[in-house]
């Protein structure tokens, strides 16, 4: 169905992007981050764990941000670190979506006892400060990157479930759902084909915001020594190492700190951009 209408719909979104410098900036930054992560091996001058010089070197033309306590190139490690951050962000958010969305849809659609049980359970889980719950899970599962992903993902499940449940609750009374029932559609069909398409944009927006939180949490856990283990190039772990190194070479801490800050900022902005772009009812002047 490569129709003219579909084409014009795409063109409308494109026009909204081009007209708004903030959207343009956000999307190019996202693209830049993703490309950096994908092609880290090509972009970084040196390997992530490669010892290339003496330790504690200050920035030079060869080592743009100097070297760390083992003599690895800080700039290269920051580039490789984007891969860790975005991978954890994506994988853990995917876990939250895969479990949270169906839970929310079922809970909102059926209501009654299913909903009550679901809501009370999420009440309990949401009572934990997110990072504490993630830490507890990592403590039990063992500290490695895979478990960090699981922990961060699980913590976000109730948040997704809540959001989706609220939307499903208000949508299920819509007449187009009743129309589907009158046509003889099954509950599964109605949830999957009628409700879900109306939830995609809000899920997508929440995905980017959760993604930002996940990147932040991974860095925090790695900073605490509970996430990615050395010598993996995690920004959080580099920040921890940089803290000890502040007086000799502050660029490690500054570089890792800025990388986290920028990534979180960009994905938070992406949430706003998507909200604006995906609104089908918005009319352009």
């Amino acid at each position, binding site marked *: 169905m490569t129709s003219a209408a579909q084409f014009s719909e795409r063109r409308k979104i494109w026009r909204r992007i081009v007209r708004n410098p903030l959207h343009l900036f956000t999307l190019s930054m996202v693209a830049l981050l993703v490309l950096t992560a994908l092609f880290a091996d090509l972009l970084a001058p040196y390997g992530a764990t490669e010892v290339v010089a003496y330790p504690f070197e200050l920035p030079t033309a060869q080592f743009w941000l100097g070297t760390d306590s083992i003599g690895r190139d800080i700039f290269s490690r920051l580039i490789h670190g984007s891969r860790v951050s975005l991978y954890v962000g994506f994988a853990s958010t995917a876990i939250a979506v895969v479990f949270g969305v169906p839970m929310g849809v079922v809970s909102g659609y059926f209501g009654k006892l299913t909903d009550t049980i679901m809501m009370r359970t999420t009440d*309990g889980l949401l009572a934990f*400060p997110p990072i504490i*719950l993630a830490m*507890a899970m990592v403590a039990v599962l063992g500290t490695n990157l895979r478990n960090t992903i699981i922990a961060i993902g699980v913590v976000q499940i109730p948040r997704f479930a809540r959001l989706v449940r609220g939307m499903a609750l208000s949508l299920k009374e819509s007449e187009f759902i009743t129309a589907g029932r009158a046509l003889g559609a099954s509950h599964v069909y109605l949830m999957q084909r009628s409700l879900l398409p109306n939830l995609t944009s809000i899920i997508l927006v929440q995905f980017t915001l959760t993604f930002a939180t996940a990147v932040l949490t991974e860095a925090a856990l790695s*900073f605490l020594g509970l996430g990615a283990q050395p010598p993996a190039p995690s920004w959080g772990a580099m920040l921890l190492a940089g803290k000890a190194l*502040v007086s000799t070479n502050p660029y490690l801490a500054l570089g890792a*700190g800025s990388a986290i800050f920028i990534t979180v900022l960009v994905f938070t902005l992406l949430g706003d951009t998507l909200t604006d772009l995906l609104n089908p009812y918005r009319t352009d002047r």
Partner: protein
Amino acid sequence: MTRYVARRLLHGILVMWIVSTAVFVIFRLVPGDPAAMTLGFDASPEDYEALREELGLNDPIHVQYLRWMGNLARGDFGKSITHGYAEVSSLVFPALGRTLELAALSILLAVIVAVPLGMISAIREGTWVDHIARVFTTLGFSMPTYVMGIGLLILLAEVFPLLPPGGYVPFGEDPVKHLSQLIMPVLTIASVTAARLTRFMRAGMLEVLSADYVRTARAKGLTERRVNYWHAFRNAAIPLVTEVGVNFGLLVGGMVVIEQIFIWPGLGWLMIQSILTRAFDVVQIAVLVSAATFVIVNLLVDLTYSWLDPRIARS
């Protein structure tokens, strides 16, 4: 009103029950049980079995659950085998106190900054004051607390060595040192929190300022100044209570990293130390207590809110 309080209390108790069950599930049912966690993954099978027996992990799961809930109900948090059988509560509660001290001071500072800033920003909407305030709030919103903390540490302890780079001395021992150690962590948390509160206050004020009754007040001949300060402030400040409460609860959890950076022996610091030394019996109680603090703070906020604005309780 009484019924509302009773209902909220009941809900709080229900949530606490779910929370303690969740902690039980995490620490007993997730693969990698407390025994393995205590001993590490390379322990001998004999040691492992002996510890499982001592911890009662070989009992049926419902017996373990009832024992866990029973102990909690009596306020018995157990003894820590990795801390020479010290009472876990004697480790956790002093740490909680130090965390609350940090959180309370930070929130206080944040409110002192955010309320006037948000108000001025709203009253002088679109002027340079407003723009500066908005840049500050946007940056504060995306700035991870720990990045901010490290930045301050570099600035105030390394580049300009004005303050100690962290640590903790009890107030009773050396009040001056205690306070100087407080400055950086409080500044860090307060500035991030203030960003959120300022934004909230500004939005609330703008909403109220455009509302009809303020216009009526203006028409009645009150001065501009009194209109802004009195009517708008009261109505924008009440929802702020909720926002402060939400932030306070989040802080107790989010302070883990800050305490680690500034070596402040609060609840978060205790948790990290306990995880690294495999003291699961301390970790589980620390997790429970931080969630409980969150629940209690939310409860207090709800009750304060309904006291300030009785319509809530009636709806």
